[in-house]
């Protein structure tokens, strides 16, 4: 059967074709509907006629015809826009799809910036990017975010309507607003990754792999904006984290701390690629928080044993990160690095100062980090109290598993 082959082609080419259709018709729903119909047509026609030489061009042509058709039908009913789409003008270059294809790279970039537009709520930004750029179905997105399918569906309907009716531009922002908007895009991609990375609370549930999807989005961004050092830095960071994924949770389902992970099981390919990307990013000589975090992850990845970790340099990099991205959570990580580099007491002093920070109230990692340092120092009674304080703040079973084990080790 040809169907799986055709489905693969549709998946591979879908994003490009969809991005072009959205630019041309300015309507996400129309573009998606037309593309779905083109896929159906491909499954019907290709087995008999053979695969076209340029499947993307074929799909574009068929989907465009379909979109024009759908538009004509909609025009029969009342329409509420002040400027009806100029169907005649669009039809006149219906055959110009070859030229269309050459502009496709930019279209995918436009799509990414539009999905991550600051006028769109964050949850909707992620859902829309996963839908249009990663080709996930509504059901898959709902599963990934552990929400009812109807919630996701509604979110997507609302956001597409807003893009259309508030006329959120379909373009890569220019000049002054580009750096800020690029930060927003990177932020959304990283959020998708973290959603997957932290999503250990749903064992057994079939979750589409958000880490893989985030890496896919970052790859697209790097491919389209190869000179953006922070895009390279983000992709490097995610690959270096993803490389450790298989070892993050032990056989008992509890979180496995970095120092106890089986480093031989880290994904060497991802590490090699991450390190290479980080080098290319640093060569551009425009530092940023993602590159700094990737550099920290790289130092962990380079240490073949936990005791070989260059904590002095990691502490220095956290210092740099704090200057770029001040915040209590970064400070907590910096305190841990300082403890590893210069002794647990130094880390505990810093954490004591962090105790009063509002951003960290209710944040289980503060007492958990304190507990680990107290345990190292052999101050077991204090360590037990701190582990219990952390346990009171966390529900995730994998994280609880780790804290329970440590508490037992401390005689609690």
């Amino acid at each position, binding site marked *: 059967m040809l169907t799986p082959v055709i489905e693969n082609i549709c998946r591979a080419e879908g994003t490009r074709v969809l991005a072009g259709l959205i630019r041309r018709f300015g309507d996400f729903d129309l573009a998606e509907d037309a593309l779905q119909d083109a896929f159906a047509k491909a499954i019907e026609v290709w087995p008999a006629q053979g695969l076209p030489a340029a499947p993307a061009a074929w799909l574009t042509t068929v989907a465009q015809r379909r979109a024009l058709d759908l538009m004509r039908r909609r025009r029969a009913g009342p329409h*509420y826009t002040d400027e009806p789409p100029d169907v005649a003008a669009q039809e006149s270059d219906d055959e110009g799809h070859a030229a269309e294809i050459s502009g496709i790279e930019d279209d995918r970039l436009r799509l990414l910036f539009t999905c991550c537009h600051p006028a769109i709520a964050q949850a909707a930004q992620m859902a829309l990017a996963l839908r249009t750029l990663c080709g996930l179905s509504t059901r898959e997105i709902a599963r990934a975010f552990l929400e009812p399918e109807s919630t996701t569906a509604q979110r997507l309907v609302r956001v597409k309507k807003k893009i259309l009716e508030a006329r959120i531009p379909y373009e890569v922002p220019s000049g002054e*607003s580009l750096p800020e908007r690029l930060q927003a895009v990177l932020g959304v991609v990283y959020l998708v990754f973290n959603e997957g990375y932290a999503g250990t609370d749903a064992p057994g549930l079939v979750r589409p792999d958000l880490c893989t999807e985030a890496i896919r989005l970052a790859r697209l961004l790097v491919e389209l904006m190869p000179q953006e050092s922070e895009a390279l830095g983000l992709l490097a960071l995610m690959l270096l984290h993803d490389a450790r994924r298989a070892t993050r949770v032990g056989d008992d389902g509890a979180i496995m701390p970095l120092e106890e992970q089986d480093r031989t099981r880290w994904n060497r390919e991802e590490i090699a690629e991450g390190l290479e990307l980080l080098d290319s990013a640093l060569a551009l000589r425009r530092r940023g928080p993602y590159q700094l975090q990737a550099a920290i992850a790289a130092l962990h990845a380079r240490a073949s044993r936990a005791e070989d970790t260059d904590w002095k340099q990691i502490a220095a990099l956290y210092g740099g990160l704090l200057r770029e991205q001040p915040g209590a959570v970064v400070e907590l990580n910096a305190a841990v690095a300082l403890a590893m580099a210069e002794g647990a007491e130094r880390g505990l002093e810093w954490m004591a100062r962090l105790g009063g920070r509002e951003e960290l109230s209710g944040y289980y990692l503060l007492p958990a980090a304190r507990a680990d340092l107290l345990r190292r120092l052999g101050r077991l009674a204090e360590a037990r109290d701190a582990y219990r304080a952390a346990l009171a703040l966390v529900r995730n079973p994998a994280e609880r598993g780790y804290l329970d084990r440590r508490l037992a080790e401390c005689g609690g």
Partner: protein
Amino acid sequence: MQYMILIYGDEKNFAQMASSPEAQKQMYAAFTKYTKDMRDAGIMRAGSELKPTSTATTVRVKNGKTVTTDGPFAETKEQLGGYYIIDVPNLDEAVKWAARCPAAQGGSIEVRPVGVMPATV
């Protein structure tokens, strides 16, 4: 594409300003310049300050009878104090103009696309 720029702010601050002619003068100068910039850019279609919500009357028709109540539609922390209607190509442009509004500092500006009546009506 037309957008309405709705200017929200705390009326109390506004009322207090009345006791300081200097602050009031500065604010009106800022709005005069903002309005002139919009006119010069050729995007302004309408706009005005609104009298305070204490002057508002809310009207509803129930069973064919007009019912009026004193005050605004809803009591809120920030009140609608003025509006502009501008004509710009897209939301990014509208947001840029909204951010330049003198009341954006300390208040909130809502940007809403203006709908168009169906041609058949």
